[in-house]
């Protein structure tokens, strides 16, 4: 005769947690896949208008050494982000917070560099309405900057949650999701830096 065993609530909770984990991670990957299409269309639009400067300034304004330094900063922020994730996985919250703060700092430096670059370009006469080149350039790099700014805010939220002890094991996935978003922002910049800056000069 078969024996009936009552379900183990702890096991069920674990399985439920695993499902939630997988569902949220799947949703993040779907979101990132859709973001590829979003930035792909913006890059295509820039390439379409790259020579349409209407007599105004164009790609000759680009300061490649400066943007290279910004790119390097953003690239290294991916390293600090993955080290933060790794530290939280090892339950080392203190080190995790250090790397989270480092990532937010590097992201902020990148943003400051972008604001400086935009200010320089506006002084040189390239505004959002100067030409299709200017519109598509500011739309693309501006949207990317907005993504970085949102990422910095999420990193700050993670940092505060960790400080107040609310970033426990149940929320460990949050660091992973924020990390995925942050690395995505980095890979979009890898494409922008190559296609928009290096190939246009």
């Amino acid at each position, binding site marked *: 005769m078969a024996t009936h065993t009552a379900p183990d609530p702890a096991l069920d909770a674990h399985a439920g947690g695993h499902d939630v984990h997988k569902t949220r991670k799947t949703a993040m990957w779907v979101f990132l896949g859709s973001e590829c299409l979003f930035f792909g269309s913006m890059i295509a639009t820039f390439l379409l208008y790259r020579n349409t400067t209407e007599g105004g300034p164009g790609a000759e304004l680009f300061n490649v050494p400066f943007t290279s330094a910004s790119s390097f900063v953003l*690239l290294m922020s991916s390293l600090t982000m993955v080290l933060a994730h790794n530290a939280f996985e090892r339950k080392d919250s203190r080190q995790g917070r250090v790397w989270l703060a480092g990532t937010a700092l590097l992201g902020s430096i990148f943003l400051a560099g972008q604001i400086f670059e935009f200010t320089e370009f506006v002084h040189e006469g390239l505004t959002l309405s100067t030409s299709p080149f200017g519109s598509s350039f500011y739309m693309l790099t501006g949207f990317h900057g907005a993504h970085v700014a949102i990422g910095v805010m999420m990193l700050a939220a993670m940092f505060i949650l960790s400080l107040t002890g609310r970033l426990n094991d149940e929320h460990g996935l949050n660091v992973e999701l924020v990390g995925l978003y942050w690395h995505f922002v980095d890979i979009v910049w890898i494409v922008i830096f190559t296609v928009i800056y290096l190939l246009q000069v």
Partner: protein
Amino acid sequence: MSETAAHPTPKLYWIIALILAVVTAIEVAIPSIPALDPIKVPALLILGAVKFAIVVAFFMHLKYDTALFRSLFLIGVFGSIPLFVVVLLTFNSL
């Protein structure tokens, strides 16, 4: 069977970051070397693709994650290529 393999160690992350830094330095150097002008475009595109793939595979752990996540992301990446071509063709810019 586990769905995901073990993630890399911090030491490997540092090595990957060093490789990314070196590739970026090469990318920045290429436009300033006139002798490399004929191969500038393909070289920069290949180096950019290499950096993209390294970050996605190791920092985003896609190399170690499930096939589902890999597929979802690759649909976006490769879906953007026809989108790219269609936009440029629509305006006779390709």
